[in-house]
Structure formats: C-alpha cells, structure tokens
C-alpha cells in the first residue's frame, strides 16, 4: 500500500531528471558565459517548473529558443494538476494503491472525490483544468498576445507557476486587459477545482457555504484593500534607502536604481494604478503564481511583510496553488481559538466545524502537525541557506518562495531578480524544498522512514 507515496516521490525526482536533459544539452551547446553550465541549473529550472514554483536561473529569458520556453511552460502545466493524476485519468489501472498516489499529489489535507472511482475524479479535475487553460489562451490571444505567449502564459497561470517568456514578466506586455485576465485566472487557479466543477454544473451553493472558498476570497479582498490603501497613501517613500544595499550588490548602480525607482513610482500614480498592481501582486503571491507587474520589493516594509505572510497561506486544497493551503490555515485558527476557550472553560467539549461539518480530531491533529512541520522545515532550511547567502532576508524568503512554490522572494531573490547567482549546494537545498512543498511534506518524508521499506 505504501508504493503509492514512493511512486509519486521517485516519479517526480526521475521525471525532473529526464526533463532537465534537453535543457542541459542546450546550455552546453549555447554557453554564453552568463552563468556556470552545470546540470544543477537545468535540474533546478525543471523542478521549479514541475513544482510550479517559477524560480528561474535564466538571466535572459528572451534569448531562449521557443522550444525551451514552451518546455518550461509545459512542465508547469503538467506539474500543476499533477502528472500522476493525469496518469490515473489516462491509465486507471496503474496496479498500485490509487488513493495513496492521488492523496500524495493532489494538494490539500484530504483528497476529496466527486465520484466513487478515483480515475473519474482525476478526469474531472483535468477536464476543468484543460477548459480553463483553453479559455485563458483564447482571451489572452484576443487581448493582443501572440498565440505562443498566450499558450505559455495560460499554462503558467493555470498551474500557478510563474514562468514567463519575457524578462519583465507580465509587465512587458503593458496591457490592462492582459493584466486583469491573468488576475482573474490566477484567482480561479488558486481555488478548489472541484468547486469549479460543481459551479460549471450549475451548483452555486459553494459561493455561500464552502468555508474555504469564502476564507480564500476574504483574505484576498482584505489584502487587496490594505495594499491599495498603503500604496496610494504612502507610494514608494523611503524605498531608495531600503533598496540601495541589495540592489547595488546585485549589479545595479546608483543611477540605474534611481531610474528604476522613478519608473516604479510612476506605475503606482493614482488610485486605479495602485489598485491594479495591488490586485495583481496579491493574487500572484496568494495563489503562489509569482508573476510580476511591479517590483514589490520596493514597496513599504509593512507590505513586504504582508506578502511574505501570504506566501505561507497559499491557495485552496484541490487547487494548483502551493503554500500551506487556506483550509489548513482556517482549521489551525479554529483550533487555536478552541484551545483559548478551553483555558477559560476546561470542561468544554467542542468539535471544529468547517462548512457546517465536524472535522474529525484525527484530521485536526494531522493538520496541526503539518503546520508545525511546515514552519520547522522553513526555519531549518533558512538556517542552512544562511551558509550560502549572507543576507538573512534573501535566505529566508528564498526558502519560503521554494517551499511554498511561489518563485520570487525578497531582496536578492526579489521580483526582478533570479536564482542564477546562487551556489550549487544552495540550489540543491531549494530543489529539495520545492519538492517537499509541492508534494506536501508527508509524501516525501514517509519514504525516508526505514520501516516503510520493511516487508
């Protein structure tokens, strides 16, 4: 029965290896000296693709051939809904425990199923995924993107990945229609696809009664209001001092920094512009897509911290998003509140209810355990990363950006930076963090237990 977890974990490691081979061959054949040719770079890029992290080691994306750009986007798309889930939809009889594999790959604390047969649920998830990807491609194409860019950006959006075909990400298109289209589809990609399926079938009760969906929407709206207000009132005041230290160290001289600041300040002039960029960046971080239309690293510290906090939250269960997942955050909040009440009323017996249904204590402890493990791994990996990165903000946010499958962090790995400069051991730490984050920790860690291998 435990083979399910092993297939998912080893499957992901092996797939990434084979997917990295063409990229490595390309790097070797077209080496321009901009970064060291090493298989780690190709493996990092592909793990970032499959896990839908979107962290890149490419310094000049636009110089890449279309085949490589398409391959990066395709790895996002396959990893987003899950290649094991796709295999289950195509080959229902893989010969091993299907539920374990499904649970091992589909994000969220419990693998919901709409149909008694898992293959049927996998097919439903993939059908909705394909439908949304197709719709976004058509809209982006009509909005002015080339067909190639429309396809690759739809793959990256629906998978909540973040790989773009442009160096400046979505900002390169300079189109409000494209920006709002991607914002809307990021919102869809971060919500549970089974909720979408029920809505497509005409059942809209989830809007009202699904606690996770309401929590997800509520957090996004609250964050957008706060970010818009701070950006509109404060702008980028004080950003120059804060940015100078790491921008200069990453190769930007004072003059370039000044020009960059001016252009970012211009972007945020007026209420509508602040709202537009606030909405896009909040969705890009909450859903863990990681696209950028603005350099949010220049935003006031309160907003930088808010975005880092949102990186932990992530999307919904059953979505393509990363992070801890909204349902877990909601249950941990409810658990903490219940424990607080128990201090005042020790005899209180209260079950935690979500969407009107009691959550089993077994599942509550699983979720609290997951939350603790997630934080511990973040802390432990951040410690390790400080060996490779001198700046604490960079090392900690690089870890959460990898573990939460977001992509950009802050400072040295901010919205306009990349991971090319990171040392080889540092990249392997992040590769492992991406895998742990995408397969939600337990699936990977369970195969390290010796008892799992005993017959």
């Amino acid at each position, binding site marked *: 029965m*435990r*083979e399910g977890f*092993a*297939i998912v974990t*080893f*499957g992901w490691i*092996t*797939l990434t290896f*084979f*997917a990295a081979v*063409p990229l490595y061959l390309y790097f070797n054949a077209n080496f321009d000296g901009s970064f060291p040719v090493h298989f780690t770079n190709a493996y990092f890029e592909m793990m970032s693709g499959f896990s839908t992290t979107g962290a890149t080691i490419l310094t000049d994306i636009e110089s890449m*051939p*279309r*085949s*490589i750009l*398409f*391959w990066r986007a*395709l790895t996002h798309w*396959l990893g987003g809904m899950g*290649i*094991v889930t*796709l*295999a289950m939809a*195509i*080959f229902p009889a*893989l*010969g*091993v425990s299907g539920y374990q*594999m499904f649970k091992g790959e589909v994000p969220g604390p419990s693998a919901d199923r709409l149909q008694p047969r898992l293959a049927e649920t996998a097919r439903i998830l993939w059908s909705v995924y394909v439908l949304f990807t197709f719709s976004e491609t058509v809209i982006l194409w009509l909005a002015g993107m080339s067909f190639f860019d429309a396809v690759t950006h739809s793959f990256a959006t629906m998978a909540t990945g973040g790989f773009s075909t442009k160096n400046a990400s979505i900002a390169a298109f300079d189109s409000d229609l494209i920006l709002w289209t991607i914002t809307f589809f990021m919102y869809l990609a971060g919500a549970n696809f089974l909720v979408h399926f029920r809505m497509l079938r005409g059942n809209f009760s989830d809007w009202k009664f699904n606690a996770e969906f309401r929590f997800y929407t509520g957090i996004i709206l609250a964050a957008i209001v706060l970010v818009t207000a701070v950006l509109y009132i404060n702008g980028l005041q004080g950003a120059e001092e804060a940015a100078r230290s790491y921008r200069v160290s990453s190769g930007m001289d004072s003059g370039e920094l000044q020009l960059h600041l001016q252009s970012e300040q211009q972007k945020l002039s007026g209420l509508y512009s602040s709202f537009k960029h606030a909405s896009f960046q909040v969705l890009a971080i909450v859903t863990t897509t990681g696209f950028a239309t603005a350099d949010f690293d220049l935003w006031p510290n309160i907003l930088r911290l808010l975005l880092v906090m949102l990186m932990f939250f992530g999307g919904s269960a059953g979505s393509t998003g990363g992070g801890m997942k909204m349902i877990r955050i909601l249950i941990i909040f409810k658990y903490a509140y219940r424990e607080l009440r128990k201090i005042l009323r020790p005899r209180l017996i209260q079950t935690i209810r979500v969407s009107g249904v009691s959550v089993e204590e077994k599942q509550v402890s699983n979720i609290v355990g997951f939350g603790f493990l997630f934080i511990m791994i973040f802390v432990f990996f951040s410690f390790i990363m400080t060996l490779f990165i001198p700046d604490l903000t960079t090392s900690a946010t690089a870890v959460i950006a990898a573990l939460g499958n977001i992509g950009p962090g802050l400072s040295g790995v901010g919205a306009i930076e990349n991971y090319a400069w990171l040392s080889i051991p540092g990249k392997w730490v992040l590769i492992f963090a991406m895998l742990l984050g995408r397969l939600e920790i337990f699936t990977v860690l369970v*195969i390290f237990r010796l008892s*799992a*291998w005993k017959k």
Partner: protein
Amino acid sequence: MNIRATAFGVAKLLQILAIFMLVPLLISLFDHYEGSILSALGQPTVQVS
C-alpha cells in the same frame, strides 16, 4: 514497500513525459527548418539581410 511496483509506476509516468516531450521537439524542428517548410508549402519567407 514493493520496489518492482514502484519502478513500474515510475516507468508509466516516464512514458507520459516522453509523449509530451515530443511537442517542444517538434517546435524546435519547425524553428530550425521553418524556411524550408514554408517554401515547400508555397508561402513567402522573410529574408533578413
């Protein structure tokens, strides 16, 4: 844990990956032979001097 069952499952996943890998390969071939393909189809090609 059954190693044979694990290897069988991983091999199935690799099969799927191999199918999807054909798409960028075709794009690469098309980009490489774009001029010849378009002229074979009777389409005008752009000359960059």
